[in-house]
């Protein structure tokens, strides 16, 4: 009898010993710095929330690492020749986490909710162009647009445009139910988000992890200690200032990818002397973009012509951009009637360290062309209300948008929403190029137009976009299959922990 019990105990011990590490190994623990405001995708505004958006929900489409649009919930889609009627065909048999099957009415309800002003979704402006929606059958949705638009499928990969179940919209903020690879187990504000595997995910064999835990840790020293002692496996979006802390440990890998998040030197064309294109060009010629990456980002960024990131298929790698050309810059200023340069005040927002450092670098870089810069640091509240869109010369910055069109058009087209607030830039050629890109039927046609856009943007610059910022993650080397995303969300579908 004693031997039987002993044998049973050994078995139990072996079983516990075998099972425990296995379950523990299937959990990926991630440190993120800020608390999440909401779990309702339409209302999300910060990176931490986007992580949950992509883990818990799916879009009609998704963007891959190269910036190309791929099917997600929509198996395929077609557009009419005039690009005004779009039809999306949904995957069949996709189940929400609460068990109901996804259908066309959910897609319509999701878009209608984003279009509703009272929802307050930041992506609402993008979806304003949808005029009519109808369900042709349970799995087919047709959108009629107010104007031709080639990028509709791209828009459906956007962070806020996750498809939500129409019967659960009121509880999305607390108990979201989606079609994504993971489902919400619990959210303790200020502490953690716990997610578990969705065994009914529509891609077979995915995800491989059993669970994901997002730990909210505001202090980067605490994050560094936590990844060192194995409390977390991955630290998301390392602050530039803290990277050295993570580099020392041989068990930790750092992965880096250029995003289309950028900081810019804004020159408001409604103010003198920036109404003269020669002055704007002179300033852009004096800025050393490579040095700017070192000074403002400590090297963790990539110099660029515009917000199209190097590495994107539409990036123009042959375009000459730098080194600074002081002689031409001085000549341009003289032609503009400013042979002795000028004095100007530059505003930078307090608490946005990269933009503050740009301000200091600009002051030094413009000295050789006799542009004397006086820097004024203003608090963020004041910056939004009194500087942005109102002053002549300041440093601002913007997060990546899901599509090339949504990243560029509002800033460079004379009718673009951001252009009319920021730099009041008008260039007929530019307008024509961006409109042509919007209506392009093929990728090569689109690419040709965006190459032309980049040439124009350097010839007649509205301002200077010196770099795009790199997004960096640190992970322990037992995490396999992880790649940082240019959109800064975490794709954990094929990740494992050993």
């Amino acid at each position, binding site marked *: 009898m004693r031997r039987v019990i002993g044998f049973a105990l050994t078995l139990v011990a072996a079983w516990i010993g075998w099972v425990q590490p296995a379950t523990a190994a299937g959990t990926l623990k991630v440190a993120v710095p800020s*608390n999440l*405001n*909401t779990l*309702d995708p339409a*209302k999300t*505004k910060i990176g931490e929330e986007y992580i949950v958006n992509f883990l818990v929900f799916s879009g009609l489409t998704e963007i891959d690492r190269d910036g190309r649009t791929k099917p997600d919930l929509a198996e395929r889609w077609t557009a009419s020749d005039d690009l005004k009627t779009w039809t999306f065909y949904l995957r069949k048999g996709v189940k929400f986490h609460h068990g109901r099957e996804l259908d066309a009415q959910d897609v319509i309800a999701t878009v209608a909710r984003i279009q509703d*002003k*009272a929802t*307050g979704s*930041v992506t*609402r402006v993008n979806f304003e162009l949808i005029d009519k929606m109808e369900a042709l059958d349970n799995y087919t949705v047709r959108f009629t647009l107010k104007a031709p638009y080639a990028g509709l499928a791209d828009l459906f990969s956007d962070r806020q445009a996750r498809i939500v179940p129409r019967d659960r919209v009121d509880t999305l*903020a*607390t108990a979201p139910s989606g079609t994504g690879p993971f489902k919400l187990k619990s959210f*303790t*504000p*200020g*502490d*953690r988000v716990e997610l578990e595997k969705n065994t009914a995910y529509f891609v077979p064999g995915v995800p491989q992890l059993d669970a994901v835990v997002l*730990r*909210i*840790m*505001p*202090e980067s*020293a*605490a*994050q*560094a*200690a*936590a990844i*060192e*002692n194995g*409390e977390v496996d991955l630290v998301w979006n390392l602050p530039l200032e803290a990277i050295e802390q993570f580099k020392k440990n041989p068990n930790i890998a750092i992965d880096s990818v250029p995003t289309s998040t950028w900081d810019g030197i804004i020159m408001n064309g409604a103010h003198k002397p920036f109404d003269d294109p020669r002055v704007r060009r002179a300033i852009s010629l004096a800025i050393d973009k490579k040095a700017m990456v070192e000074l403002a980002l400590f090297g963790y960024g990539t110099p660029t012509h515009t917000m199209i990131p190097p590495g994107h298929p539409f990036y123009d790698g042959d375009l000459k951009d730098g080194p600074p050309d002081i002689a031409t810059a001085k000549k341009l200023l003289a032609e503009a009637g400013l042979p002795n340069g000028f004095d100007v005040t530059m505003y930078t927002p307090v608490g946005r360290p990269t933009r503050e450092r740009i301000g200091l670098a600009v002051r030094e870089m413009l000295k050789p062309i006799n542009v004397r810069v006086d820097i004024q640091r203003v608090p963020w*509240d004041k910056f*939004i209300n009194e500087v942005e869109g109102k002053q002549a010369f300041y440093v601002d910055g913007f997060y990546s948008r899901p599509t090339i069109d949504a990243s560029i058009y509002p800033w460079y087209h004379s009718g673009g929403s951001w252009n009319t607030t920021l730099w009041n830039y008008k260039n007929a050629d530019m307008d024509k190029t961006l409109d042509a890109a919007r209506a392009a039927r093929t990728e090569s046609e689109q690419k040709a137009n965006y190459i032309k856009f980049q040439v124009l943007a350097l010839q007649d610059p509205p301002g200077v976009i010196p770099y795009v910022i790199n997004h960096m993650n640190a992970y322990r080397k037992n995490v396999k299959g992880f790649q940082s995303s240019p959109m800064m969300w975490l794709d954990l579908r094929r990740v494992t922990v050993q």
Partner: protein
Amino acid sequence: MAFYIARRVAAIALILLVISILIFAITQVLPGNVARMIAGQFATPDVIAAIQAKLGLNDPLVVQYWRWASRIVSGDLGQSLIMERPIGPMLRTALANSATLAAVSLVVIAIGGIGLGIIAAIRHNTALDHGISVVTFLGISVPEFFWGIVLILVFAGYLQWLPSGGAGDSATGAMSLKHLVLPAATLTFALIAHVSRMTRSSMLETLSSQYVLYARAKGLPERVVLIRHALRNALLPTITVLAIDLGLLIGGIVVVETVFSYPGLGRLLLFAIERHDLPLIQATILVVAAIYCCANLAADLLYAYFNPRIRYGRARG
């Protein structure tokens, strides 16, 4: 004594009423706007108007205050505008976490501070006394976040003995005790000097008084002189200092909770203020104010218990 307590409780109710009006007024004049917070930096005015109408922010202030106050009295703290979830449960969890951290810290501060103060008083002007002074002053003169990070680097990063932060899983008690060590140590280090210094000086004063001399002259053992006669009187000012420390603890806890990613009341308040979540700010501050009032009440009652002159003097007047 009962009358004394009743009077004090009534006074606290009145204070809380005034505070509730003040909080409401202050949150109305805070710069910024919750509708803008929800809609984002780049929202157009019509979007903001739509959200404001939905949230009832256009009603007269008196109506808004009445709606809020009457709900609170009936025990409903309302709904967080940003997180769209009831404040009650969220605040309870955060309060429980902070209360645990504060209670552990306060106990360590009280016992450690009084102990160190007594030792310093008995051995005053020796190396031991000076050593205690230097160490406790080091704690008070360098801000909490510095010591917090030092402790994280040493005990969580280098030695890997303790977790770097969080409150642990509520399911397993042992885990959460481990999570308390570093934040409680940080708070203790920051505040222990108040208590030890106060205990030391009032002990010294008492020890040089006539009645201690008399007690010693009677031939009582030193232990009895110290604990029965000297300490009981010397503790009076220390109790006041402890009540003040509880106030400082509530302030210091905001910093410590952030450094140690500890999900407590301080972090919640910080979040609410950053996001301009009015109902959450109001509820959290009201709770903090109530705690502060109760701490003062407790200190006064303890004081009255130790010193009968106070309770009888006040009760008559």
